């Protein structure tokens, strides 16, 4: 399938429209939910950390530190990707699956169009902007943590900001974005595979979306483990 995705390209003027449309539905359309989840989960991480710092000898800047580490290393790249497997993955599987059951893919094939390239390549390109979504998630997660911590009275603004800067390792950002790039490819291809090769009717489209979400999540979690093992140990 992947070989065909990158073979016999669709005409640029059509491809350009498809890419822009996919950027709109897959990236722009996800910003709201990603922002909402990131902000509030960042806040919860911060409150949970604060509530667990019972020892008065532990500095308050640990709240900012723990929030930063949780958000940058795992929450933003991995858990947002699992959420995106539900949102974007189901959308991709159901839209391609519906095209399959309503013979739209057959219609494209009869016209002599490379349907793999036409349907899947724009999604891969659109999701190459996915690291920007994760960047936003990181920012809003930490910002949410800051608001919850400072306005919740758990630490001062200075302490939280100190914590964010404490023992900062720039490679952690690189690690997070390397993971994100792999996840964006998984998010585009695994759901597309399940949609493209599905058979049956409307009921099967729903089933394919569920199966696609499960497999995309499994692949993301396994890949997360593998990349962490390779890059951080």
């Amino acid at each position: 399938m992947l070989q065909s995705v990158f073979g016999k390209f669709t005409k640029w003027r059509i491809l350009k429209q498809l890419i822009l449309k996919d950027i709109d539905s897959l990236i722009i359309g996800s910003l709201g939910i990603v922002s909402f989840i990131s902000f509030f989960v960042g806040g919860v991480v911060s409150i949970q950390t604060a509530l667990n710092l019972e020892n008065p000898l532990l500095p308050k800047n640990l709240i900012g530190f723990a929030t930063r580490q949780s958000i940058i290393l795992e929450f933003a790249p991995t858990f947002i990707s699992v959420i995106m497997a539900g949102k974007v993955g189901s959308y991709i599987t159901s839209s391609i699956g519906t095209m399959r059951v309503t013979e739209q893919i057959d219609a494209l094939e009869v016209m002599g169009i490379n349907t793999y390239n036409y349907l899947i390549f724009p999604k891969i390109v659109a999701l190459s902007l996915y690291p920007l979504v994760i960047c936003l998630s990181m920012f809003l997660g930490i910002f949410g943590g800051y608001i919850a911590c400072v306005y919740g009275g758990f630490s001062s603004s200075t302490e939280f900001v100190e914590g964010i800067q404490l023992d900062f390792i720039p490679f952690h950002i690189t690690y997070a974005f390397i993971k994100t790039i792999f996840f964006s490819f998984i998010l585009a291809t695994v759901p597309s595979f399940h949609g493209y090769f599905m058979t049956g009717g409307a009921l099967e489209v729903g089933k394919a979306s569920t199966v696609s979400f499960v497999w995309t999540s499994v692949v993301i979690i396994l890949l997360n483990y593998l990349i962490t093992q390779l890059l951080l140990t």
Partner: protein
Amino acid sequence: MIQVDHIIKSFDGTQVLQGISTVFEKGKTNLIIGQSGSGKTVFLKCLLGLFQTDSGKILFENKAISEMTVNERSVLRQEIGMVFQGSALFDSMTVEENIMFPMQMFTDKENDEIRDRANEVIKRVNLINANEKFPDEISGGMKKRVAIARSIVMNPKYLFCDEPNSGLDPKTAILIDNLIQEITSEYNITTVINSHDMNSVMEIGEKIVFLLNGKKAWEGTKEDIFTTENEAVSNFVYSSDLFKKVREMYLKT
């Protein structure tokens, strides 16, 4: 002209097409008829190249698909128009965009020129005030017209239709049948229609191929079908009392 030479197609060890041979002539509406499960759709998909045959040849203007280069196949595909049973319109595009799509894909013409051509075929299939509508906003009959318009916008040499009037009321079904027949003679194309609608057989069947259990059981014209002594085709075509009476009346006159 399309020649089919002894094609065989199996799925999971079951032969769905068992050595079918026939010729579909240019400028004629050729009908493939048969009961559900007789292999009509598989046969049509083999003709379209959506299924690879196990053996046998399909020749377009005396050139076998299996012997064509990738480029030749690509050119052939652009010469084929297809009307699917469910119309298969792209639901994210308007009627006009659906019809413009093949031209945008395969020609270097400017958008205005493409739109003019699209409007020409829209007029030809009698679609009124539907250009900006999406497929889910139009009726079944209109969807078929859009599908026909999309299939002829590139001036195809071959037109394939899979049950083009299924799900339509009898009046609209006849209009669609007549439209296909008019387009066939007007554009001088080879049209192959997959149908089990007896009205279509009587109205537009210039050549009819009857399939039974994956084999060609009979072929002839709509006139021949009244006089045939082939039991299988008679049982299929004259399964209703109405058609039996029509046949009796035809034979009396």
